[in-house]
């Protein structure tokens, strides 16, 4: 995909996020929107996956360690054709395959159930370890929130990944700087993030998480790194793409009402039209 096509696709993903969370009347739009670009890049450019064969053995794996941003992943999987986009309006409804947090048994394209923070990275490490041990060539990716770095298990997993030289593992941190109780510094600062991962033996790449050129360069670089895992730390804007949600912590875990939904969708429609005129 060209950069413009990726931007258009990410805009569609954002519409899917807003639609899903609005339908659910609950959920986590802020961190889904901040990660919409990386979700798009992963599922449309980076990952070796096939929507027609979601469980193919040699597929690259992705674990959404920050599982509460499931709407972002679901919207991306739907956009990529793993299931109909209409399903997004069933998010969090009784009987839906789209659970509040990812459930691998129900949703096509999910490699792991997640939602309890700090555990997804360990599961990704387990996948990478299995691949290394048995000579499989797939790569493993996992996306963490910056607040999630407060979980001790993240560092247990990081220590192990580095000690076992898991260079088939790519950790991504969505550094949008906000968590439910406030900014991550106000709550319990995990900064400086790059230095911490470096101390834990990672190859560290810092990027603007909304710039597809930088994302491409980072993921390409990660694949060349041998003997150590890579972390891509993305500076992002929570709520990115919906002006009234941007950098506003109250949109971490609340859904737009009908009026807010209309406003958000109009904004995204307009952004889409502008991209089409490029």
């Amino acid at each position, binding site marked *: 995909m060209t950069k413009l096509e990726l931007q258009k696709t990410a805009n569609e993903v954002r519409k899917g996020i807003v639609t899903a969370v609005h339908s659910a009347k609950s959920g986590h739009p802020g961190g889904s929107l901040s990660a919409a670009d990386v979700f798009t890049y992963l599922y449309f450019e980076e990952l070796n996956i096939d929507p027609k064969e979601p469980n193919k*053995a040699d597929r690259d*794996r992705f*674990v959404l360690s920050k599982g509460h941003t499931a709407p972002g992943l679901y919207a991306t999987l739907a956009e990529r054709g793993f299931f109909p986009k209409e399903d997004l309006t069933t998010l969090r409804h009784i009987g839906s395959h789209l659970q509040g947090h990812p*459930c*691998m*048994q129900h949703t096509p394209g999910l*490699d*792991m*159930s997640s*939602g*309890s923070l*700090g*555990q997804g990275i*360990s*599961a*990704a*490490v*387990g*996948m*990478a*370890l*299995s*691949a290394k*041990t*048995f000579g*499989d060539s797939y790569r493993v990716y996992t996306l963490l929130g910056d607040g999630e770095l407060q979980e001790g*298990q993240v560092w*247990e*997993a990081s*220590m*192990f990944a580095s*000690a*076992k030289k898991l260079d088939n593992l790519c950790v991504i941190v969505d550094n949008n700087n906000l968590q439910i109780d406030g900014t991550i510094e106000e709550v319990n600062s995990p900064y400086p993030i790059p230095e911490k991962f470096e101390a834990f033996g990672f190859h560290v790449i810092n990027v603007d998480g909304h710039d597809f050129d930088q994302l491409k360069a980072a993921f390409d670089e990660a694949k060349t790194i041998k003997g150590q895992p890579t972390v891509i730390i993305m500076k992002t804007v929570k709520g990115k793409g919906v002006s009234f949600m941007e950098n506003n912590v109250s949109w971490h875990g609340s859904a737009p009402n009908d009026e807010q939904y209309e406003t958000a969708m109009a904004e995204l429609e307009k952004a889409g039209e502008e991209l089409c005129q490029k």
Partner: protein
Amino acid sequence: MSEVKKIATRESYGNALKALGEENPNVLVLDADLAGATKTSVFKKAFPDRFFDCGIAECNMVSIAAGVATTGRIPFCSSFAMFAAGRAFEQVRNAVGYPHLNVKIGATHAGISVGEDGATHQCNEDIALMRTIPGMVIISPADDVEARAAVKAAAEYVGPVYLRFGRMAVPVFNDEATYKFEIGKGITLREGTDVTIVATGLCVNSAMEAAEKLAADGISAEVINIHTIKPLDEELILASAKKTGKVVTVEEHSVIGGLGSAVCDVLSEKLPTPVKKLGVNDTYCESGPAAKLVEKYRLDGVGVYEQVKEFI
């Protein structure tokens, strides 16, 4: 008469893992800096490329095992019961149980027979915790023969299994040549008509000893070995309770939430029967030689015998 052979079920676990490693190239073993104690070191020595020490980080180990299981390999992860079931409970529940992944948890040093290390390491709550996880199989073998058979069965079964092993050497009473292990199928070791003693783990041997003594007093005790606590062999327990009308449960575990509670759950709903639960009575235990502790907490043959007498 020759001396009865004694082997700790953790030894059986290590040996069974090694045998599994030879049979199945997809078995991978994880430990959390206790390989020498959990006996996964036996596997490590034979298959160093398929053994991984996670260091002292049990929560990470359990979640890693979950990730390994998603790739179609069979991870066995090990620590003491206190840390595998206790510290990592939420990982077991959310990363293993919820997606129903094919992870085997080999928990050693369960119960008071940990001995000298004392209360912080004596896990009397693991069965209770694991029972609450939907789809979790819980196996608590009684001797070496049963423990090795259980490990093999756990590897063949697809889904999460919690295996409970002990630190202390215990008598080997099953005959390898005739012994058959089936997940979820209890074993009637001795038939009787006056009282049913349902036991698990090292308490099965205590129950057998108690039954001998009771027989000398003219009391006919039926002894049932429940090696699989979940799914529980309800049919066997109900049939025996119907016959004897009195049930005693014996376990090296808290009387809250363990085998006794599982038996009561079945009987209270389907065949209300007087039950006496023997185990650790809502207390922390203490340091001391393992066998002495088992005696003090009245879970040896004499203790079980006396308490059955008090009950009936």
